[in-house]
């Protein structure tokens, strides 16, 4: 499910060591939550996001910047269609 880079490649901008879904990952990319979500590609469906145990308001996905050591959890909605209209 996760497609985050596990280690820093030479020459790339320094990234963040995060815990995503309980796994330690090295993330390189824009530090806002929306970008992390987008980096998951199509495997990430609609989800609430918790940072260090607190649910983030969806309106803050673009504004909140992840910090070194943050724990990120995706709370996926599963269990029926919300309709495709």
């Amino acid at each position, binding site marked *: *499910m*996760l497609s985050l880079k596990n280690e820093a490649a030479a020459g790339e901008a320094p990234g963040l060591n995060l815990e995503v*879904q*309980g796994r330690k990952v090295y993330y390189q990319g824009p530090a806002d939550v929306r970008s992390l979500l987008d980096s998951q590609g199509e*495997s990430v*469906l*609609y989800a*609430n996001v*918790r940072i260090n*145990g607190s649910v983030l308001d969806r309106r803050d996905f673009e504004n909140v910047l992840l910090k070194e050591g943050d724990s990120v*959890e995706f*709370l*996926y*909605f*599963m*269990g*029926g*269609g*919300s*309709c*495709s*209209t």
Partner: protein
Amino acid sequence: MFNLTEEEIERYSRHIILPEVGGRGQQKLKEASVLVVGAGGLGSPALLYLTAAGVGRIGIIEDDVVDLTNLQRQVLHATADVGKPKAQSASETMKQINPLVEVDVYRERLNKDNILPLVEKYDVVVDGVDNFPTRYLINDACVMKKKALVEGGILRFMGLIMSIRGGETACYRCVYEEPPPPGTVPSCAEAGILGAVAGVVGTLQATEVLKILTGVGKPLFNRMLQFDAEELSFHEVQAKRNPKCPVCGENPTITELVEYDHTCEIQAPGS
């Protein structure tokens, strides 16, 4: 001495030999009642294991009929059952597996008018529905009636499960306060579901019910388990009761059942 017949002692011997269950636990199962909402992908494995385990009375509420596309995962139903009401097909299969179990069949759709008296008749409720409006309705009713509820959801290669003791532990709304907006979450019909994932999650739901009824182990209260079949991994999310939860928080705004629209025009409670 426990009120189990010789046949029951033999049938359930692999339960009874477990010290944590024993004759006492099996007796509890015999005296227990469980309502399973939906006899589909999740309800099928849950109902099979609850029936085999000897839960005394099992209710099934389901208004759909068996369709050919169901058979890839809804293992209660066979090819010959296509076109038959699912509740009836489920009941027939359950009776073949364990005729000692009493089965209540409700061929109707759960709604805000029938849910509360129905939930009251059972010790534990299992959520095996395929839509968010009913999922929220079940959660709210179980909170109001202080019932144990085992939540389950599936999509594509993923699943989730969470046990709730209404009014005591974190409820579904404590984690997911409102349904997702229209157009954001596809259904299994739209996005697909690996059949065996339904088997994993429905079987875990049955496991949770059996633990809650017998008092064995530590149910998934205040925890939510996410299952990822592609990675074959589980991730446990700690769920706390949310003081601002609209149904079980300190100042609940949902004091009467609300039913979100099934026709996609999802509205906020009270609107």
